[in-house]
């Protein structure tokens, strides 16, 4: 039997009559970078709070490193580092003092503070007050704090939220290094597919509290590939012409939506249309928003 780093069973949390998290079964293996995807309000943060024992599940269990959170919370948390939602800090203290407040409790060695500051590249700002920090620096300080106890599991909730592109790239690099350089399993949540796509090896998709999909990132990419839309003078006739040529496509009002998306097939479709005398006014790529991919997944689940 495989030993999961994170394993939840029928994890459910209700607030009054509202179900925030609904029967979620997460499975995360050692060395995974697990992308936890879902629109805002899907229940990601509530799930993370339950993984950390901050919130008690209404039903279901959380097991980390094979141990039950309800019974061994403190032993589990010794091996977990977390950055939940916005970074929290004490603005009147320096970066070093902020880490010190946690280090004292964790009983980590003093030099560990320099190590984590170095990992997140904040050494130069170590003795500056955190209130002068940019959001990106605060976020990095939050990650440094999460790394203090040399965790085996790092949980990062929307770590790139509100960062500028340079900051996003920095955090992404940092996350990528975790499993290879430090042997840390990473759990990262995001509402942006592109974000998770860059770093994750495995994804889970949460929508309205339900886990719609869990699996390798490759399958997710398949579903998320952008569609190509074409506009001609007579969509219905053009559709039939292309169908007759063996293309799979659909009509959406005046538009044709090509389901084949390789460069060659798109070029071929355009060439066929022109040969058959249809003027091609527009060829557009349609990036699918995450919500639509979710819909596709639910549709897939119902069909399957």
């Amino acid at each position, binding site marked *: 039997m495989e030993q999961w780093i994170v394993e939840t069973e029928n994890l459910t949390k209700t607030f009054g009559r509202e179900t925030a998290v609904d029967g979620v079964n997460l499975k995360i293996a050692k060395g995974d970078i697990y992308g936890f995807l879902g629109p805002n309000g899907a229940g990601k943060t509530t799930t993370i709070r339950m993984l*950390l024992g*901050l919130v008690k599940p209404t039903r279901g269990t959380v097991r980390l490193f094979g141990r039950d959170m309800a019974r061994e919370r403190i032993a589990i948390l010794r091996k977990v580092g977390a950055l939940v939602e916005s970074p929290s800090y*004490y*603005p009147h203290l320096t970066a070093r*003092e902020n880490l010190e407040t*946690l280090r004292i*409790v964790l009983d980590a060695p003093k030099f560990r503070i320099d190590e984590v500051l170095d990992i997140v590249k904040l050494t130069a700002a170590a003795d500056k007050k955190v209130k002068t920090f940019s959001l990106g620096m605060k976020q990095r300080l939050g990650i440094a704090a999460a790394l203090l106890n040399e965790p085996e599991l790092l949980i990062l909730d929307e770590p790139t939220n509100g960062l500028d592109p340079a900051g996003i790239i920095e955090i992404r690099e940092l996350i990528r290094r975790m499993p290879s350089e430090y042997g840390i399993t990473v759990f990262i949540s995001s509402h942006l597919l592109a974000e998770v796509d860059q770093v994750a090896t495995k994804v889970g998709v949460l929508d309205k509290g339900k886990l719609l999909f869990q699996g390798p990132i490759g399958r997710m990419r398949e579903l998320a590939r952008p569609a190509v839309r074409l506009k001609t003078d007579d969509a219905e006739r053009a559709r039939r012409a292309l169908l007759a040529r063996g293309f799979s496509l659909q009509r959406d009002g005046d538009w044709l939506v090509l389901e084949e998306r390789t460069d060659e097939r798109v070029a071929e479709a355009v060439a066929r249309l022109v040969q058959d005398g249809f003027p091609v006014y527009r060829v557009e790529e349609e990036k699918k928003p995450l919500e639509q991919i979710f819909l596709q997944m639910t549709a897939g689940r119902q069909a399957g």
Partner: protein
Amino acid sequence: MTGRLFRAELLKIKGKGLWLLTVLGPLGVVGLQAVNYGVRKDHLFAQSDDRWGDYLANVASFTPLALVLGIVILTSFMAFIEEETGAWKTVAALPAPKSLLFLAKFLVPAMLLMIASGLLVLFTLAHGLFLDPGGRVPWADLLIRSLLPVCAALPILALQYWLAVVSRHQGVAVTIGVLGFLLTYNAHMVPDWMPWRWPALAAAGDGAPAAIMGVVFGIALFAAGMWHFSRKDVS
């Protein structure tokens, strides 16, 4: 573990002026009498033969107010430090029992109030000697009036701390704190069974029953708060 948590709490209040407040409280209480006696010392000394006793009673008339005000400010502050940037979730996710976290944080205002009470002894004595009322220093009276009110105020401390820590923002705790302050201000009209009366009873000189009640009831309230906090979800 409690020791480590407590040291972390002490670091968090660095540079926030809480230590200054701890000195200013007793200094203010004695300072008011410095003004009082500065303006009309001869008149006040002419009131009775027990000049030391009168002086100590005058100082003690403001001790409960300063104490309750200090409690509201300190407890609210301890909670605000975590609330300001949403740090509760980080602290609660540390591998430490939440009950001990609750205790360690409570010990900071409790300790500061005890230090303030100790300073009150020193300041009262120093100013008293400066006034030179004659006769021997009434040590027992001085210590009782300075040190017992903080024991009698323990239920108020436990209640305000609990409110400050569990309420979503400090408005609730401070509002109730202000109401408590008004009760303390009018302590002579408050029935004996209400905790807001106890610091005044203790400061009045025969404070042992009020102090004992305060400690017993204060520990009970604190335990209830700890029980609640350690079971409560962290949002």
